């Protein structure tokens, strides 16, 4: 019954998407934007026929991810087991970093920073995109490293006229720009976007501040959680105590790889591990709220996953602040950049944003612990989404 409800919830959401905004023109959930998908190596490749599960094993690339054209749990990719296990081990190192643990009693979380090796124009794959703004009065405000979701981006570098240089040098400690982090889903449009609000000299707009990758969407999040709660996963070898799939995290990460071919993403791996445990432990919302557990985790009522810091859901890194979009307070984080920093990093501002702030700007997936009821099991515990090792 729970699985049927989940499936109905997904279908209902798919049809509702057009009215909540952004859905009519968005690619179907799970498809790869611009025909490009991640493969296990973290590079992009062209999209093959979405039904060619066999081909993907040979080409090592793409596939549309499950659910695009097929039903939930109907398409599993053939994956290189060893490569996926190695990738999952890297993801586990991140998720269980004692300094930045991903599984909390009331949330799952990860940083906005991309996993190592992602090309500049592909940065922003963790349900969080980021870019830089330079605001120098002689030049005006300019946006750098803003992706278009199709493999392009605005120039990451900025050059300066003598006049701009003089302005920046006049007071090197003045704020001259910003790194912007956004979790505003690509398929969600709020009631109102106040264009009179300026962020580092740039008027607030969906064109600039909304996420662009189709995978950074409410639809994708909802589908991912649904899949990971619902879909059967490979079972570990009961006769081999050393089988890595005995590990709860690895099992969920592996499932994500089979369903979406994205073991290189922190977000997908962590969400699937936590959601997978919810599924294994027979969890659902304790009361009928009209939404499914998956929809609830995917922030059905919000603009996107809320942003925070490692020290707390609303404790941002030094020099950073929230900016509001309509009534949503926690989906835009703006971190000030001084004139000195702009000058020092003019050739690669987006990299600067990644290195200086992205590791400390954290995407939260709130888990309403009190609202979740689980059938349980010996290994489940009271909070099964708090995956442990």
């Amino acid at each position, binding site marked *: 019954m729970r699985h049927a409800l989940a499936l109905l919830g997904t279908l209902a959401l798919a049809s509702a998407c057009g009215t909540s905004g952004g859905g009519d023109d968005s690619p179907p959930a799970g498809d790869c934007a611009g025909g490009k998908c991640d493969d296990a190596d973290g590079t992009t490749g062209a999209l093959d026929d979405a039904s060619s599960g066999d081909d993907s094993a040979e080409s090592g690339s793409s596939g549309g991810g499950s659910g695009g054209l097929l039903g939930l749990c109907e398409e599993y990719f053939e994956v290189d087991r060893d490569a996926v296990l190695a990738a999952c081990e890297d993801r586990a190192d991140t998720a269980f970093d004692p300094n930045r643990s991903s599984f909390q009693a009331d949330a799952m979380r990860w940083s906005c920073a991309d996993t190592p090796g*992602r090309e500049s124009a592909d940065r922003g794959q963790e349900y969080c995109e980021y870019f830089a703004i330079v605001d120098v009065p002689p030049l005006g405000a300019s946006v750098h490293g803003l992706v278009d979701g199709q493999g392009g981006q605005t120039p990451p570098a900025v050059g300066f006229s003598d006049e701009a240089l003089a302005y920046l040098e006049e007071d090197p400690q003045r704020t001259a720009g910003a790194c912007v982090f956004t979790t505003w889903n690509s398929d969600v449009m709020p009631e109102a976007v106040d264009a009179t609000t300026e962020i580092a000299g740039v008027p607030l707009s969906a064109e600039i501040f909304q996420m662009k990758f189709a995978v950074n969407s409410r639809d994708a999040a909802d589908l991912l959680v649904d899949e990971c709660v619902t879909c059967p996963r490979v079972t570990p070898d009961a006769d081999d105590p050393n089988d890595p799939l005995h590990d709860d995290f690895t099992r969920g990460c592996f499932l994500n790889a089979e369903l979406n071919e994205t073991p290189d993403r922190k977000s997908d791996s962590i969400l699937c591990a936590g959601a997978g445990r919810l599924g294994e432990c027979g969890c659902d919302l304790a009361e009928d709220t009209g939404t499914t557990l998956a929809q609830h985790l995917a922030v059905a009522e919000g603009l996107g996953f809320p942003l925070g810091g490692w020290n707390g859901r609303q404790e941002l890194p030094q020099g950073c602040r929230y900016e509001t979009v309509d009534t949503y307070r926690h989906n835009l984080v703006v971190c000030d950049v001084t004139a000195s920093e702009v000058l*020092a990093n003019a*050739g690669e501002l987006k990299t600067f944003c990644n290195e200086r702030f992205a590791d400390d700007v954290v995407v939260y997936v709130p888990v309403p612990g009190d609202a979740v009821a689980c059938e349980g099991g010996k290994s489940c515990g009271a909070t099964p989404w708090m995956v442990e090792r």
Partner: protein
Amino acid sequence: MVPTDAASLQAALQGHADPVAQWILGNADADAVVSSDAASLVEGVGLALDCDPALRETYVVLSNPLAPKAVVAHCADVPTDASRVLTIFEPQPELGDLDADHVRMAAWDPAAERYRRYQFAPHPDGGLGVVSEPEFCASCHTFGEHAWTPIMNEMTNPWTRWHTEPDFTSLLFDESVADPYRGPTWDWATQTLASASRFEPIIRASAARVTEATIQRRTEPARPDLVEALVRPVFCDDTYNFASESHDSGELDMNVALDPMIRRAMGFADPDALGPWAVRDSLKLPAPGDEASAIRFLAVRSTLTVEAEAALLSRNVLEPMDVLRVRALDWMRPVGSPLRCALYEDALPRWQPATDATATDAARALYEHVMAPVAARLDDDDTVLAIGEASSIAELDAAEVLTLAQWDGAIASHLEGLETDAGRSRLRAEVQARACTAWAVDPTVPKIPGFEPGRCP
């Protein structure tokens, strides 16, 4: 000796425009007693900075020898504001506490564009007096041609030997080492104890102040000391930072393997030449088997030096290829290259700035003078003379001319090789080698596990 009358104090602070000097002059009595105690001093300066007391933070490090030192910052939520004044409490084991009688402060003087240093000490009449710009501070905080700068040995996660709770799990910060120093001053100072991860941006802001002050003098007439202050950091490392593996994760800051200016300059010169390594900020080594195998305090190029070079690039004193041609020499050794520094020191005695030149023009000329042996081997504007490891100018003969794309490939292979068990062993050996180089020029080298100064050449 602390001044004991107002006139002496006035004379000592003549021309000081920093906030600490202003506060001292406004609060000292006729006998030059500045404050009754350290707490009043720190709190008073904080109010003078217009900082909310609730935003004062204290950071603790196990300094050399392993004993806790506390650093206090005001307005800690905004790193550039916090970098205006820093207060230091040293450990005092015989007191069983931090030393409240010998507090130090560093304060940015916006008029002089440098840090002023103050040592507060017991006044003969009771309370605290102050000594301005004591010499002993300079020995640890002045490096080569760099002006006095606040320092933080390890400026990347895991900030080894710093207290990093609650944000992060501390590494090699032994609480039991700090226990003997916990008295009233410790209790007062650490009521605002915060993670050292929050101190890092403040130190970066401090370094930015010093760097900006130096680079903005490039339009002045050329004087040898000014020109050398601009150019020497490109070739010689007089100050070091350090990086450690994050606990037992195998994750290690990329700067241990590759100078960060390579990526920055290549991004300007030819972004298409940059391979996937350019977007990575860390190496991923196989996990260490035990603590003895872990990489702790591996020397890297200091933030101060890197930013000094980046400033030359952003102000067009040097072109991206100029930077890359230096970095390509002994490129597998990102810090403390005997080759790069030998080129500079060999050429310097034979150089004089042209009459009526600006510091910019003279810096450019000095660079070209130093790099003449390299330039003689290059015919194309877009090539470098690259050699992975070399210790002397004579070894330049073995260097090869590479395009940026070719060098990029070599870099990728090198980094791949380091992310292996053999690579870990190599980096472990580098801890000793680089510590020796750093130890020879930088007295602030931390106490490095396993480092044996007796084995240094």
